């Protein structure tokens, strides 16, 4: 029996009315239903911040972990049980600030997980400090004279690192985000989805109307080639990062776990056992014991 949206509803969200995270949650729920995946087959690993609460609201297995540490947990869980669909979710502070080191290596390692970053350009749960995505000059509670740093360019960084799937969506366009999340889950390997998720309370400037008026949809551009990483770099540069859609996909990417021949057997979760006698004898021989 296929799962329904109701199976993907758990606790009642505590987000502010109008929060972009509602749209992201809805998009993930619909994507999973569309892909005919049951909630118990999914592990959602979330970080700290408003977006980190998503794992509580979606009804799947979940781990609401440490700030910035979703990716190590998610990658390891996937290696332990390759039958699980593993999603990591968090905010831009979580993924591009405190946890950005893990993002670099998750891209390099290419474990088959999907990482959805709810990007609102601000630290919201701590009530309005600058984020790594906050534009230079913007006044926030931690930068009353204007944010002094340049913002990170997460998608440009991911492309530069050779990520196999790079996309950007928008909480104000859930239908499109559903399609993006489905493609990200289907992609074999690490998939990054940066989802603009407006904070209506602490960063209304970067809101629905602002984004709707500016986002350029590459998926609607018949001339756009999503298998060309340089095209993705170009369009990001031309549009100042305000694009929407699947920017890049490498269908030939081989995930970490598929590249290791020893993982071909059943998932490791089914293999918690001592050494068999032949292997134990080989170990003993390596320590100098002759049988």
């Amino acid at each position, binding site marked *: 029996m296929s799962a329904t949206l109701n199976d993907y509803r758990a606790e009642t969200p505590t987000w502010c009315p109008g929060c972009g995270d509602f749209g992201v949650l809805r998009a993930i729920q619909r994507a999973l239903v569309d892909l005919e995946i049951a909630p118990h087959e999914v592990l959602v690993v979330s970080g700290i911040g408003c977006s980190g609460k998503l794992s509580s609201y979606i*009804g*799947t297995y*979940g781990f609401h972990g440490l700030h910035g540490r979703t990716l*190590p*947990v998610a990658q390891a869980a996937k290696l*332990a049980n390759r039958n699980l669909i593993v999603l990591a979710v968090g905010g831009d502070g979580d993924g591009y600030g405190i946890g950005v080191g*893990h993002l670099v290596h998750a891209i390099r390692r290419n474990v088959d997980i999907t990482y959805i970053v709810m990007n609102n350009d601000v630290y919201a749960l701590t009530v309005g400090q600058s984020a790594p995505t906050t534009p230079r000059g913007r006044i926030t509670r931690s930068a009353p004279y204007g944010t002094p740093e340049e913002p990170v360019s997460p998608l440009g960084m991911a492309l530069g690192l050779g990520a196999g799937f790079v996309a950007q969506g928008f909480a104000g366009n859930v239908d499109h985000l559903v399609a993006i999340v489905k493609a990200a889950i289907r992609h074999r390997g690490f998939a990054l989805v940066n989802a603009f998720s407006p904070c209506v309370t602490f960063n209304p400037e970067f809101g629905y109307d602002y984004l709707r008026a500016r986002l350029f949809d590459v998926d609607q551009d018949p001339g756009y080639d999503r298998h060309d990483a340089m095209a993705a770099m170009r369009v990001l540069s031309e549009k100042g990062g305000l694009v929407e859609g699947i920017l890049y996909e490498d269908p030939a990417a081989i995930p970490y776990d598929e590249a290791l021949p*020893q993982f071909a057997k059943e998932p490791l979760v089914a293999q918690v056992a*001592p050494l068999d006698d032949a292997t134990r004898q080989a170990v003993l021989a390596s320590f100098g014991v002759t049988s």
Partner: protein
Amino acid sequence: MATHRHFMSLIKGGHTHYQVRVSSRPVFTAGDRVDILVAFDHGAIEHDAHRLHAGSIVLADQAARPALPAGCPASLVVLDFEALAKKAGSPILANTVALGASGALLGLASEALDDQFVRRFGSKGEEVIAQNRLAYRLGWQSVAGLGLRPPGKPEKPPAAKRLLLHGDEAIAWGAVEAGARLFFAYPITPASEIMQWLAVWLPKLGGAVVQVEDEIAAINGAIGASLAGVRGWTATSGPGLSLMQEGIGIAAMTETPVVIVDAQRAGPATGLPTRPEQSDLNEVLYGSHGDQPRIVMSPATTADSFVVIQAAFNAAEKYQCPVIVLTDLNLALDRQTVDLAAFRFLPIERGEIDTVPGNYGPHKYPRFAVTEGGVSPRPIPGVPGKTFVATGDEHTPEGHITEDPAARVEQMRKRLRKLDGAATLGDEAIWYSGPPGADLVLVGFGGTYGPIAEAQEELVAQGYRVGHAHLRLLRPFPAAELARLLGAPALVVEQNATGQLAGEIRRQTGAGNLRSVLRFDGNPFTAAEIVGEAREVLEA
């Protein structure tokens, strides 16, 4: 046989040595005195001259222009290692020449290591094997005719199957026997040897070593793997352990099993990165913010490392909390021969793991149900009808985030009572040997087992009534058991500057009659210095 590797945090240069002690009975340290010293440079003689005695023989390379310090009673034999090595085929063979010279002193035959060279250099081809055999013979011949008397020759021990390994290898092997197939780690002395052993063996077992970007990723990876149902673990040393503290806390809060090996070295900061110390004790007992349950085990010997790591995996799953296995550099890296019979295999016990499908709605399953013992059944992601979120926020029995005071208190108490009266180690928390009513008890943990045991033996031989208590479990602390043993004055032997174990014993048992023997100069304890300190107390 017991060995000790002395090395510095350098790739080339500095003083380095490898010490080997051979005995017809089990020994746990490389010993205090030097019978044969092979010196490739002058510094090697200077470094160890104080350990030479009248029967000692120094085999030294002519190129080092060797000389014994004034008053040194040893015999000096100068050989031209380099010339002999070149004769055998290459200057790089000088160490094999020295090996042959030592072999002749020990009464080994000139072809005694022929098979070993095949084992060691087989992959490098016939020429390399032949060169090494020749180099060994040339060294052997240069000493065999000199009529030197070897300083001592042990009897052949009774026949038994024996392994040659160090604590890191014993831990790695024990972990795979415990079913652990995923290991997450970042290289660090002296824990890297665990990773390197696993990197060879885990791929053959269907598993993998994931060399992660830092120790934060290592602990979180181990937690993620355990959450998903395998036995996730990591190994590190002090600097890495400091980075793991937040992760240790979320494993305790989310009741996710995880095993962390801390092979201690001298701190703080980078400290003496290749030297032994036991100064992480307070950190493993008290690190990470907030009140939380935790188990800390500390193997005493190489074989015990194998046993304790298995017990650690069982305890982590049984009590659903972090287990730290505390070792130290000497235990981790000094190879010893150990009888196979000393390696105990423990059955895999997975505690309340739950793989039975249920009928619960989304997040309705009481994963954190309040139980008498504090442990609740733990479904593995993938089991239908029992979905839950493990959150680092305080939560209800169903894992829903809450700030309700009653729920907070209930969950905190549930977590903390898991270890009340728990037999976490499964066997003795303290190894005690000694007469009833001893006049002095030597107390230690971890890699000081060897020197303390030898000191005790020496003191008993001198007619003193001395006991030795070695703690294998540090959390939960075996306070009552230790208090019973500490009726007598105690000498607490530990490798740190502040007496961390002595402090913990005072805190836990109220024992007042403690005196500390501390060493934190980067070198291991010798039995002789412990004997000296003990006699001061006994004769006071």
